[in-house]
């Protein structure tokens, strides 16, 4: 035990690597700019209603081969545009 005091401590690996890996994982899938090439006017789309959200849900579920309850559709207004945000849970 006495000699243990003089034993060189094993150098612990710093936490930078963990932080870097986690940051990469978080950031990689997050920020991506989606260029708006086509804007459909409100007259064509009409007022977003439950039926429209249901249609989007069905399409996304089919497209990604998941159950409909694993798809969440949200509408947000950004700078005068309505942006459709869909979250798909694969597992």
């Amino acid at each position: 035990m006495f000699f243990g005091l003089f034993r060189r401590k094993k150098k612990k690996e710093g936490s930078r690597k963990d932080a870097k890996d986690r940051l990469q994982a978080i950031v990689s899938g997050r920020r991506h700019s989606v260029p708006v090439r086509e804007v459909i006017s409100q007259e064509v789309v009409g007022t977003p209603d439950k039926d429209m959200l249901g249609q989007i849900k069905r399409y996304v579920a089919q497209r990604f081969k998941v159950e409909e309850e694993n798809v969440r559709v949200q509408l947000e207004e950004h700078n005068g545009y309505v942006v459709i945000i869909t979250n798909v849970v694969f597992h």
Partner: protein
Amino acid sequence: MAKIYVVTSGKGGVGKTTITANIGCALASFGEKVCLIDADVGLKNLDIAMGLENRVVHTILDVVNGKVSPKEALVRHKQFKELHLLAASQIATKEMLSPEDMKRITSELYNDFDFIIVDSPAGIERGFRNAIAPAERALVITTPELPAITDADRVIGLLDNAGIREENVRLIINRFKARMVKRGDMLTTDDIKENLAVDLMGIIPDSEDIIVSSNRGIPVILNGNKGRNSVGRVFENIASRLRGEMLSIDKDLETTPNKGFLELIKRIFGRN
């Protein structure tokens, strides 16, 4: 004609207001005409950071309500005659101000200043949208910790959506601890830059001098921190870069306080 910047971060408590105040002072010390706008309506702090809290007569809300013009609402700094503040109101909410109001206010000040810097509130809601509305360029503040960096990433995306392109966005890393980086316990500036894909405007070391100057209501460059190794030098470096000077980012790291043997001895004998 002014260059209009917004200072933003997403996450709160990373130092936006302190940085805004100090960059404003540093720019004014170079003779630039500077107007700082506190867009943090409801929580106003910029007047306190600048030691001007007792001088505020009119606020941004008085301007919005048409009581006074933007120029009439400005408070001039005690030492720097070219530095002005448009203070926020504490008895108001962010909803009482609109992005259009901010655009109108800055357009009325546009020809009288070289720099207009808008201090954004934390978050990405109405206050943030108000603050970014008139800006052409942005300074995104982060600390070297994951929550702050990921929020900064989100904000950069939102700035892009709002029309402030990545080439007009610059990153400032605050509370950088060189010793932790050396030890392998903190992300390096390159790690952060690489992940956010935005160029750096400055690296501010973690410094007690900033807290001391904030306690006194004196911006750090005016609080005896103008030496070669002082943190005040970093704000001067940032101001130089904002003025278009090509100054290496490594210059900021040269100011990291030296904690060598002499400092240790001074601390032991209570001289520091």
